[in-house]
């Protein structure tokens, strides 16, 4: 196969892969940051980095690599946020000026009132419970349950030991079940 054809095939596969994961990646970032705009920025950064650095890797590696980049970006975001909030408290501006970052997000999905109620009854509760988890547990849980990565891939994406993944995962399930109950 000619290099040009090979290159095009690669790009098509990469585009397909990114199209497949973009929604979940965005939601994961949104849950982690509680900000839609920041989540979009993080996903975009992760996409750029994956395409730029790892396009020539095996396709099976793209998933763990992409989520590894995304998790690093999320961690960086949290570091920056904590520094920012420290400065704010030093300058006497208070914690984020008491503003909820989600309050600025416009709900443009134009959901019906019933759907919104449904969302309020399920996703919102789940999102709140997920956000209350320690970050590592939250990330492991979402990667394992939603993204379908196995223990090894999750460990690769999280840059940690497989044992840690198992521990975080079981703790996350236990906490979420306790918080959400059987039906929510």
């Amino acid at each position, binding site marked *: 196969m000619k290099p040009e054809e090979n290159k095009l095939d690669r*790009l098509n596969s990469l585009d397909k892969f990114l199209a497949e994961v973009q929604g979940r990646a*965005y939601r994961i970032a949104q849950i982690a940051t509680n900000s839609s705009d920041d989540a979009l920025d993080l996903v975009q950064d992760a996409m750029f980095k994956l395409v730029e650095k790892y*396009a*020539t890797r095996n396709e099976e590696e793209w998933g763990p690599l992409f989520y590894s980049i995304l998790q690093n970006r999320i961690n960086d975001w949290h570091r920056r946020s904590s520094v920012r909030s420290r400065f704010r408290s030093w300058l006497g501006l208070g914690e984020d000026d008491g503003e909820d970052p989600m309050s600025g997000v416009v709900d*443009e999905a*134009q*959901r019906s009132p019933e759907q919104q109620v449904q969302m309020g009854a399920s*996703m919102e509760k789940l999102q709140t419970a997920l956000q209350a988890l320690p970050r590592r547990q939250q990330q492991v849980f979402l990667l394992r349950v939603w993204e379908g990565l196995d223990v090894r891939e999750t460990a690769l994406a999280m840059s940690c030991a497989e044992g840690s993944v198992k521990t975080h995962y079981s703790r996350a399930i236990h906490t979420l079940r306790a918080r959400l109950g059987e039906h929510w």
Partner: protein
Amino acid sequence: MKKHIHSTVEIEDADERFLRQVVSVLNNSLSELSLREMAQLNQARMAATTRQPVDMARELTMSRGELPPDVTFRLDAIRAEALQRAQAQLRRGKSREASQGPLGRLFIGYGMPVSAFASVCVLVTALAVFNLRDNMREGLDPLPLVVIEDSVLLASEEDIELYENLEFYQWLAENGLQY
């Protein structure tokens, strides 16, 4: 024991039910993404994949052990420039060598400027004179000049080869030989 196994299975089933519900809620939340969010995600993806071709072509070519044409061209240009510089330096060196004596040729050959050589000479002389004067005042034998020279050589950042050649010339002079 049987009860324990039974309860473990029950817990696993409950976990599975719980997880299925979580996945279902999360998947539903995907369909609830707004048009703006979807458009932005698609835009980000397009930007990432369309910006790539040049770099990816480079990666793919290099992975086959070849260099991209632009890199090869640049390397050729660098090599040609380096050769030109070397030739020019050689020509300059030859014309200067012709106008210098054997000692001058030696310093130019090693790239040591005349001013640097003069500084080293002054330093060696000064050290020798001060050492002689101090020791005479204290009634001690002066240090042999070689030790002072060594200290200057060790302190100098110049190429040690230069000094080795100086020794050679010294040896030639001592033995009444000519180079």
